[in-house]
């Protein structure tokens, strides 16, 4: 048994780490976050030039068929830098959905662009009433002579504000919470009837709600078979969960490093506050939560690209549950150990804390995944 990265994986991770260190200082991140785009177009271009946006794709698309571990290497470093670019949304989730469900033409049209970073995809799977349940879809797609007519609203689409391609789930048949009857559609956000309400998010990124009013798309917008997208969405959301777990580990590493440094530097009562046992033990707990999270992120990466099974489902639910809990613990314990300074915008710790809480609200929080896991306890 060997948990080390192989040489290529290590090189990959080092490349991303160098890039993030060079380009993503905390001050620059605050600037990127304030722009209309909400991230750095230049950094995105560099990710693409180094082939990093192509990591999970095939060689024809300029990638090297990277699996869960390669994605993990990239995401962990993006997490350490609190990078705002829509890597997970476009490359992992958008690229994944098209790669799994798209026909040859759709792949030809879109995958090369996503892999090269020229085309940014955003994915809308949630709705105002859906909570985290991706089968809860009320957006309707009605078949007509020219293709489909879409009506409904997709909630909290991170990266949707600047996407060149929007992928949404919509119901072609079935009840509003049934896994059957869900279809996927990919289209330009400039299509008539698409309205985006853009907002910043608590963790410094940007997203939007997308209202679809009589949006007419062609038959070629349908990704995969009509009504059969439920399992595709579940599978690709699983890959995205593994990616988020990896990112979270990077965020936690930095949060812990910053806290430990502070415990050594900050003096009160004539000694470094790290001399107080209550803070020592809390720091130890932060470290062990990180190790729990790291183990689960590794496990999640190892199943991210394997065939769907109840075991894969269980692992991903477990990983997201652990990440959610560990993330909240590290966020709150870290702020507390910093005292007032941990509450400020100007110092970087709070931004790590906010990202950790935000990750818990993406693709299901710890409670949601605990329930999923419990429901799978007895499945073979």
């Amino acid at each position, binding site marked *: 048994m060997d948990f080390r990265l192989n040489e290529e994986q290590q090189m990959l991770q080092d490349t991303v780490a160098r890039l993030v260190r060079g380009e993503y200082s905390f001050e620059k991140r605050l600037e990127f976050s304030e722009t209309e785009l909400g991230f750095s177009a230049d950094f995105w271009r560099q990710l693409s030039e180094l082939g990093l946006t192509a990591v999970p794709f095939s060689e024809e698309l300029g990638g090297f068929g990277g699996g869960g571990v390669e994605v993990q290497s990239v995401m962990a470093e993006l997490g350490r830098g609190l990078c705002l670019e829509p890597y997970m949304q476009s490359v992992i989730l958008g690229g994944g959905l098209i790669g799994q469900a798209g026909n040859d033409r759709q792949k030809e049209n879109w995958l090369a662009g996503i892999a090269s970073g020229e085309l940014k995809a955003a994915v809308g799977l949630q709705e105002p009433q859906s909570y985290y349940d991706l089968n*809860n879809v009320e957006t309707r797609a009605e078949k007509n002579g020219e293709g489909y007519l879409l009506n409904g609203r997709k909630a909290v689409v991170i990266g949707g504000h600047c996407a060149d391609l929007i992928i949404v789930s919509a119901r072609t048949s079935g009840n509003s919470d049934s896994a059957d009857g869900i279809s996927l559609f990919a289209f330009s956000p400039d299509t008539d009837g698409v309205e985006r309400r853009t907002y910043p998010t*608590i963790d410094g990124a940007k997203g939007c709600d997308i209202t679809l009013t009589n949006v007419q798309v062609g038959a070629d917008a349908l990704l995969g078979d009509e009504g059969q997208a439920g399992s595709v969405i579940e599978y690709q959301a699983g890959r995205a969960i593994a990616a988020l777990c990896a990112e979270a580990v990077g965020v936690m590493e930095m949060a812990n490093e910053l806290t430990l440094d502070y415990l050594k530097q900050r*003096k009160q009562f004539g000694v470094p506050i790290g001399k107080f046992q209550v803070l020592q033990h809390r720091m130890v707990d932060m470290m062990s939560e990180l190790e729990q999270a790291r183990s689960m992120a590794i496990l999640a990466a190892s199943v991210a690209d394997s065939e769907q099974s109840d075991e894969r489902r269980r692992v991903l639910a477990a990983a997201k549950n652990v990440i959610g809990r560990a993330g909240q613990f590290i966020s709150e314990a870290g*702020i507390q150990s910093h005292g007032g300074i941990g509450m*400020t915008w100007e110092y970087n710790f709070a931004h790590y804390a906010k990202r950790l809480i*935000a990750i818990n609200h993406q693709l299901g929080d710890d409670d949601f995944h605990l329930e999923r896991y419990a429901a799978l306890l007895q499945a073979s």
Partner: protein
Amino acid sequence: MNMNYTAEELAFRDEVRAFLDEKLPADIAAKVKGFRRLSKEDHLRWQQILCKQGWYATHWPEEYGGVKWTPVQKHIWDEESCRYGVPRSIPFGVNMVAPVIIKFGNDAQKQHYLPRILSGEDWWCQGYSEPGAGSDLASLKTRAVRDGDHYIVNGQKTWTTLGQHANMIFCLVRTNTEVKNQEGISFLLIDMNTPGITVRPIITLDGEHEVNEVFFEDVKVPVENLVGEEDKGWTYAKFLLTYERTGLAGIGMSKAALSHLKQLASRRMKNGKPLIEDPSFSQRIAKVEIDLTAAAISNLRIIASVEGGGVPGAESSMLKVKGTEIRQAINDLARRAIGPYALPFVEEELDLAYDGEFLSDENAAPLSAQYFNNRKLSIFGGSNEIQKNIVSKMILGL
């Protein structure tokens, strides 16, 4: 044992309710209940209404314009005002510096400052903490050197809540460096408009401007602004801290936040049902409500003992820890209740004047920000670690 209010106390509660029904401005209550931003003007408008009723200065003797409420009456006021959406009173003038001036100040100070606090003419802020002196407050370094009729003040205060609105600051300053830390501190009242004072905002993690840094460069403060004796400020500060600590448990505010959470959870949907019918979420709410019930009774026990002539001691430290944990747990649940909508931060919706369409439930916008902002509850007013140190020393003898 009798855990019920007396007939007089019930009558008082009716009186409070009648007053709030009639006099609390609806727009202000709406802001408080919806967790929107309050302006300085909102605070002052409400203060004037309270003053007219004679209910603003509940810690003061009647001769200075205070009202003589029993601890139970204060408690009733606290509960009802949280329920009705009364703005949190800005404590620095009326509940902090005023009791110090009343107990330790001279007549001239009482005559000058107390009426100005009642009228809202002076807005006070608290200048205790410094960059190097947080939990270890007594290590503060801001210097005040006597020069004829003045003190010359140099140094820096930080975390000064609402200092941007204030025209007066009460400061702990070092007047003697030759003695033990606690023994060389004085209590000074400083006009914020004095040359040499600079106020710089500190933006908190939720994007709010609530705290500030205050810099002092050769600031001339008349000696008559010294409260009590030189070098005795630590005694006055400690007197004030006991005032600060009671009430920090925030039981009334937790009750209001809990009732908001329950409304929220009965509107938000999960699996096609209101969240409050979801087994795991309803149990989470139940657990925090049970904890709050227990803390509320503990609070009443402290109040009853104070009513009987006792002094709130380290028990209030214990209650501060519990109370802040409970409020933070409620904030955590409110953020969880909105699921994916915890992510958007639509700042304009925090403004009561906002008349656009709400992205989600109209109460969703402030919930994540509030969760983050209230991490402060376990840090300020003596961090929860410091409170536990006090309990282990004072009660347990460790």
